[in-house]
């Protein structure tokens, strides 16, 4: 009995040692030489693996930064300038600063603003609905509300708001990875410059129809009247195809344009209440 045990232990030990020796030489022979900086950079990255940088995960991004001799085209939107400074330090390169961004859904066509005129009962994804059909309201540009953006978000930064029909981006969770921008078939989501306290002045509409048609479909549609453009002193507003657009890189948050908008399609968000119009501010904070 004891002999059996001894034989077994001895045999296994010999096999084990032999295998270890073989493995050691094989490992030496096929050793992969890897730049240790890749690991260091990966360590410095936020490990979100979201793909917001355009690479397949943080490791791929780290490899790209090590390969590259400048950081002009490489930026991690999740980590932001701080992370990129760390990466630059590891690699001895100069970090290129970018304004932090945050996603915004440019549609405010909730059910009370945009009446339903038909009903879609097919597969419930935005991509499919938009490929066969313009949507349940008369606005063919607006949010379909099935939540392709919600599904694409890895950071729980989107509140689906199924009862309202238009999702909401939760600003402090959004890392501007851009997954929702890709996912939205109506191209509603824009990455806008992040201002302190997530303040924004933005045209929450994508309707390119003429004024009357747009207004009929949705009470808060942009009708392209151009009043906001006249009001803006910073050339931040452009009007194209009956639709106003506020360039967040030029906008100074002066808040001159929202009051002149006849359809309330320009939203001012996260601002302290205006002093003059007390009633309206309450509406804004809930919107």
């Amino acid at each position, binding site marked *: 009995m004891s002999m059996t045990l001894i034989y077994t232990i001895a045999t296994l030990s010999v096999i084990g040692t032999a295998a270890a020796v073989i493995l050691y030489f094989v490992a030496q022979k096929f050793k992969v030489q890897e730049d240790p900086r890749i690991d260091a950079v990966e360590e410095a990255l936020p490990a979100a693996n979201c793909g917001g940088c355009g690479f397949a995960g943080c490791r791929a991004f780290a490899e790209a930064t090590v390969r590259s001799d400048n950081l002009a085209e490489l930026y991690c939107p999740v980590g932001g300038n701080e992370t990129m400074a760390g990466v630059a330090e590891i690699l001895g390169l100069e970090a290129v600063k970018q304004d932090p961004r945050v996603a915004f859904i440019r549609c405010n066509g909730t059910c009370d603003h945009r009446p339903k*005129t*038909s009903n879609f*009962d*097919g*597969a419930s*994804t935005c991509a*499919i609905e938009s490929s*066969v059909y313009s949507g349940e309201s008369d606005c063919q540009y607006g949010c379909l509300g099935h939540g392709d953006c919600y599904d694409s978000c890895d950071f729980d930064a989107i509140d689906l708001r199924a009862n309202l029909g238009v999702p909401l981006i939760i600003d402090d969770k959004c890392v501007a990875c851009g997954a929702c921008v890709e996912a939205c078939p109506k191209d509603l989501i824009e990455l806008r410059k992040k201002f302190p306290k997530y303040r924004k002045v933005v045209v929450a509409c994508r309707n390119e129809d003429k004024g009357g048609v747009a207004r009929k479909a949705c009470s808060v549609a942009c009708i392209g009247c151009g009043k906001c453009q006249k009001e803006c002193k910073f050339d931040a507003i452009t009007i194209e195809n009956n639709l106003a657009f506020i360039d967040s890189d030029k906008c100074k948050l002066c808040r001159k344009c929202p009051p002149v908008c006849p359809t309330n399609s320009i939203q001012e968000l996260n601002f302290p209440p205006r002093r003059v119009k007390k009633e309206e501010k309450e509406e804004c904070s809930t919107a």
Partner: protein
Amino acid sequence: MLKTFKLGGVHPPDNKISAGNAIEALPIPKSVFVPVAQHIGAPATPVVNRGDEVKAGQLLAKSSSFVSTNIHSPVSGKVKKVDFSADSSGYPRQGFLIEVDGDEWIEGIDRSEDLVKEFTLDGKEIIDKIQEAGIVGLGGATFPTHVKLVPPKGMKAEVLLINGVECEPYLTSDHRLMLEKADEIMVGTQILMKALGVEKAVVGIENNKPDVIQLLTDKTKNYKGISVQALKVKYPQGGEKQLIKAVTGKEVPSGGLPIAVGAVVSNVGTAFAVYEAVQKNKPLIERVVTVTGKGVKKPSNFKVRIGTPTQDLIEAAGGLPEDTGKIISGGPMMGRAVQSTDVPVTKGTSGILLVNNEEAKRGEPITCIRCSRCVSVCPMGLEPYLLKKLSEKQLFERTEEENVMDCIECGSCSYTCPSYLPLLDYIRFGKNKTGQIIRSRKK
């Protein structure tokens, strides 16, 4: 002996409630909207402007490439706008809004009902005339007919199949047309045979239309080379590839055209339109549309000018029933729900189906139970459950490998799914995307 295709297929209830009602001409509407894209291929280029006076049969938009067709004015009147208007999907499409004034036709069109049997044109001239008249496949796919009649290099047509199957439930427009215009269809078939240079034509008809089979079999005695083949009732027998398989026993290879097995398929409606174009000089500005549904007061088959608003057809059939759940352009299996009743009749509209709330309701989808019924009914031998999954995950290389492009969108899978999964919705999406990828690769 009755023939049919082998693979898959389903048996939805027939519901051909308008089969007994003769084709009536619908009064000309007050205004029509004629889209420039009513066919597969490039949209036609407008040749008239806002404010122009047009007559019925006048060219409105010219074919812009080989795979494209001419669009003619279906009415006489004034072009009020060349503008965009929502189509059945709700997306805007360019077209002409014409305000009707009287009913004047351009010269040279023979509007009499007399049968003209003899034709002297050669193949090339016939094809030119068909192209000129803007004829497309009237079964619903609206593929330009002249393109079909010119086989690609190295291929030769051997047999012409005339599609009188009408396998979609409810629809009866082809049925009525075959009963009422049998001789014209026969002459149209002979014209198509001449254009193709084939000696043989077979009319495929399902045996739920015994009256038509009888009538056409009698007629074929007077027309050389044409025969009638009765077919077992099975959906989607009216699909081009299924019809070829049923009649000739040959299978069109994956990704191939029917011409690969020497067959060309045309709908009976197309054969009739060809007859009118060649013998009567009349462009395609009218078609037969079935207006039907269980709650409809007067299920009918109307001869309608292209561009007539759906609303007019519904009113002529006794108005919109109260509990209408969906208005479908086409049949219940392949048709699409329209968003508004302002949508005009186009060359591809074979029927307007009004379904009640009960019928329109889709079951609540639950998870796939792996019963594989969708696989067994797929007439193209695909795996719908898999294609659905891959489309959902947007794995378009895989959908291509799984031959998603062979899907004929017949809807048998969704029809048969016990879990009420909207399989076709996903597959159609996958097919669209895969097609885009394939096309961009070719460029």
